[in-house]
């Protein structure tokens, strides 16, 4: 799948947040969206998925315009969301999470994410299969949020604040899983604060400031530009 965003503008109740965002994620790519808090990363993700209605600009999935479609139609084209704050369902068990929103893959030859395959990826979730969402630790919730998105058999996974508030060990586990997913052929759009880990993991990066993409480039280009991280990310 190829997702393309052009000149995207969006906001809430008359307050504009995005002022023309351009980005693209190609088949099997792992791309990050970087930037300080409040720069529009989450709004950008929400606008891609139709959770915020873009006021102008284009969002295309494999060339097909999706801006203005209801969120479930956009998701059904093969986008799986792992939202900020995880947002697992408090009253559903782990197993129910994987059943409730599951759907078959849209593309032929896609190896489907069965329950067993998901449990093989997250053995911890298999152990906690009968626990409810609100009984899980933060790390388990993040795994469940990823697992839940995988149960929809997506081609593109979008993770907003993938490791926020997680212990270093759990964080490493999430990075490991993302590397495996990428190796399995998924495209991934990743938002996170741990730039070093992201540089090791991703192909390309977009840096957002005040609702615009102010820098884009490969990992090598990012490393080659001193001061970039301090200037835009405050690290």
């Amino acid at each position, binding site marked *: 799948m190829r997702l393309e965003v052009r000149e995207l503008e969006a906001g809430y109740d008359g307050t504009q947040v995005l002022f023309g965002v351009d980005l693209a994620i190609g088949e099997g790519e792992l791309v990050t969206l970087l930037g300080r808090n409040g720069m529009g990363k989450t709004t950008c993700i929400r606008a891609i998925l139709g*959770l915020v209605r873009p006021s102008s600009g284009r969002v295309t999935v494999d060339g097909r315009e999706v801006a203005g479609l*209801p969120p*479930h139609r956009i998701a059904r084209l093969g986008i799986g*969301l792992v939202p900020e704050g995880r947002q697992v369902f408090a*009253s559903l068990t782990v197993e129910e999470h994987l059943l409730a929103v599951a759907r078959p893959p849209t593309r032929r030859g896609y190896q489907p994410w069965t329950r067993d395959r998901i449990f093989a990826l997250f053995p911890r979730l298999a152990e906690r299969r009968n626990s409810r969402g609100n009984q899980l630790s933060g790390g388990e919730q993040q795994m469940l949020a990823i697992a839940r998105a995988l149960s929809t058999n997506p081609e593109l996974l979008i993770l907003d604040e993938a490791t926020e508030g997680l212990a270093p060990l759990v964080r490493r586990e999430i990075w490991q899983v993302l590397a495996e997913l990428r190796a399995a052929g998924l495209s991934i759009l990743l938002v996170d604060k741990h730039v070093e880990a992201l540089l090791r993991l991703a192909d390309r990066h977009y840096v957002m400031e005040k609702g615009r993409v102010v820098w884009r480039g490969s990992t090598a280009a990012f490393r080659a530009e001193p001061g970039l991280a301090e200037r835009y990310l405050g690290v």
Partner: protein
Amino acid sequence: MDPLLLLQQTLNGLQLGVMLFLMAAGLTLIFGIMDFINLAHGAFYMLGAYLAAWLAGLFDAFVPSVAVALLLTAIVGFLVELVVARELYRRDHLYQVLATFGLVLFFDELVKLLFGPQPIFLEPPPWLEGQVELFGAPYPVVRLAIIATGLASAVFLWWLIARTRLGMLIRAGADNREMVQALGVDIATLFALVFALGAAFAALAGAMAGTIVAVRIGMGEEILILTFVVVVVGGIGSIRGAFVGALLVGLVDTWGRALLPGLLGLVFERSVADAAGAALAPMAIYVLMALVLAFRPQGLLPARG
């Protein structure tokens, strides 16, 4: 206190309770998931009773008539969601109350046009007539049948919510509507289904009521008020809460009416006790609600937490 009278009144309370549960289940789901106040829920109750009575009069087949009445009311519920409710989810509760109150008036007039202003009756079939002996006291079969049907419906609803994929989505939708959408579920259709399901349950309660009291315009409004008390007592959005709240309200209301005059008679003169008892009994459930609100404002078994 006569133990047989107490038993009879307890059964009557249960019977009112299960009817209230059927009403409250739909109302609490719709409120819990969609944050939508539906004053027209009583109209589904009335419509179910009228359709069942009308069909049973035409075809002389009780169970199929009730079944078709449920189906028709479910379709009406689906259409009401599509045409009216869907426009109102994003609005303030005041708009919802105004619009659905308009629906109450609309359905009352519609029923008057279709079936006339006179009350009609839903004759229970012969196999539900008569009485059975319970511990030596006679009790109407039809009321026992209502209790049994109500409990069976509660089990069905528990199974639907706890064990089916639709139930999982309903619970997930109540937890986090937006996330369900973002994961590819058409929440609008899900809501319409829940609305139709709630309408069918209300129609079942109405048809049950039709076998013991006259089917008339305005019957929906009376039970709706009790139903809101149930939803508040049980905890908004909670099916378990609706069940416990409904039985509690049914029992407290029935016991209050039957036993309060006698209890007051222990203290006061007979005539005073009767008058005071009759005046105080209808307040009992509101006192219950006030107590619940004072000590557990979220209800007895809230949906979350």
